[in-house]
């Protein structure tokens, strides 16, 4: 999606971009089998709601909440998880 268009809709962002405190529904996991499986094992998959709790400075890990579980996920991985805000 071109940058401009993205700004206009702003409904789909990745977990790194998602603002702390916001909740979104995962629409796509943009990664290979390995990543998808690891995320899946922890219950992170398309269609579920995640809340971003915080992100560390300088592209550090992102903390999300899935159900009752808090999970720390590296920035690069967070970039690959796309969510629909709201």
């Amino acid at each position, binding site marked *: 999606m071109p940058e401009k268009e993205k700004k206009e809709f702003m409904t789909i962002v990745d977990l790194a971009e998602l603002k702390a405190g916001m909740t979104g529904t995962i629409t796509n996991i943009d990664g290979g089998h*390995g990543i998808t*499986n*690891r995320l*899946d*094992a*922890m*219950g992170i*998959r398309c269609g579920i709601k995640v809340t971003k*709790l*915080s*992100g*560390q*400075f*300088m*592209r*550090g*890990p992102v*903390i999300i909440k*899935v*159900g*009752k*579980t*808090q*999970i*720390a*996920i*590296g*920035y*690069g*991985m967070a970039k690959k998880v796309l969510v629909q805000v709201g």
Partner: protein
Amino acid sequence: MKNHPLHKEPHLKHGHHRHHHGDYKKKILLVGNPNVGKSVIFSRLTGVGVIASNYPGTTVEFTAGAMGSGDMKMQVIDVPGTYSLLPSNPAEQVAVKMIKQSAEEKNSIIVNVIDATNLERNLNLTLQLLKMNIPVVVALNLWDEAKHIGIHIKVERLESILGVKVIPTVAVTGEGIKELVTHFDDACKGECTIEDTERWHEIGRIIEEVQTITHKHHTFGERLSDLTIHPWTGLPIAVVILFVLFFVIRFIGEGLITLIVNPVFDRLWYPLMMKVSGLLKGYTFLHTLLIGQLIDGKIDFGQSFGVLTTGLYVPLGAVLPYIVAFYLILSFLEDSGYLPRLAVLIDKTLHMIGLHGLAIVPMLLACGCNVPGVLATRMLETKRERFIAAILMSISIPCMAQTAMIFGLLGKYGPLGIFPVYITLFAIWIIAGVLMRVLVKGESPEIFTEIPPYRFPHPHTLLKKVWMRIHWFLHEAVPFVLAGVILVNILYTLGVISFIGKLTGPFITTLLGLPPEAVGALIVGFMRKDIAVGMLAPLGLSLKQLIITSVMLTMYFPCVATFAVLLRELGIIDLLKAALIMVLSATVVGVLLNIIL
């Protein structure tokens, strides 16, 4: 301590699992996600102590124990935690392999320990297990915590859906464990026919049917959790916590020394040893071996160098109090659940050295003793990470014995003596880490870990863990100290040490600026660093020489025990590389320090 995980490990690596199939009526595998309390249940069932902490991945290898007696004797195995049957690190590989093996044996059952506060995610593994051809009983653990945070689970409903027995348990208090045991006999195989792609969908349905959540306000733990992980508040809190820890460890360690250790050695052991010394007057060699040299007609526990004097005083009098203090505090941190948060905060920094945040756990463990530190590297996903972490801790993280040595040698100079050593070691940690990140091939994945809720450490579990670690130290370290003292005395008597001293003299004096006599201490350092102090103390080294020796002794070789574990964990080829790195970096740093200081 036969059942300590460390002792089980060789059997695992070499494939000789110590499973006496014939002797046991049943084999029970405790299987579940990381950090759900399997190890505590194991402890409850077998009475065998295993280390349990509040972070994912404490158990990196299986531990086996027995319960019941006679005809009813059962083998219980604490399997490393795994989120699914598709493993992503060596600890999980062990788990999956064991589960698959057991599925082929008739007398095995799985006790699937699941976290009641996290039913949905835990059921993912449960449904996978139910598809394996093996009887399952489910232990719904952390039942009290689930109730506390407002989660209600209809156990009977869950049982009928899964088709296997489900028993609510609270492992730390023992609630439900007896009932769990009574159902080992009627464990049955699940009848799960769900396709992998349908699994989460099915889990969703189950959750809707069996679980209700009443909303509760933010608990104190949740607020604390937010504060300690948010960068603005988390980083200052981390700094404060680490400082406080340092002082508390020192306070407890010194307290133990002045209140207990010194009085015992001075008032009880000293007079006794002086008597023994008198009795041995005619037997010079025996006197040297047991009591050592008298200094001004008296025994000096630090410098006499007899097996019964220095050999006992160094591990028990100088190092043990700090080991106790360190593991007491670290275990408290582990059980509270703070470590994964620290891992997140420090993640970026550790990326510089080719690791990710979770590597802070093995690094911290190594500050107590490098052996558990090296073993804990198994929680890291790739070979590259494990290699880097193991080498960094071997060369630049001083264990408690090394810390005791550094303080013993340089304590009298205060910060002026201590700081240069630690600053040098820290610089080496960074520089060697950055170099290895660039040079060592392979992958370093990103951090991906569950952040467990804060829990107040359960005193019983905590003390048991501290006791196990102390026990381990006593069993593993003390024999090496005694052997080291004996070896040194024999080598001295035979003149071997002065011979090597002469041989290496030019190198030691010109490049490192040390007297040839220091070579004795460096040789002893192969066995144990802490006893090298006694050999250096009488040499009257200058501050600069003491700093160089301290850094060299920490770097050039880990102790024999660590070396043995490195061999097991890295294999011979990587170990040789590691040894080369250790010797080279120690020499380079030693020479540089000699030039700079």
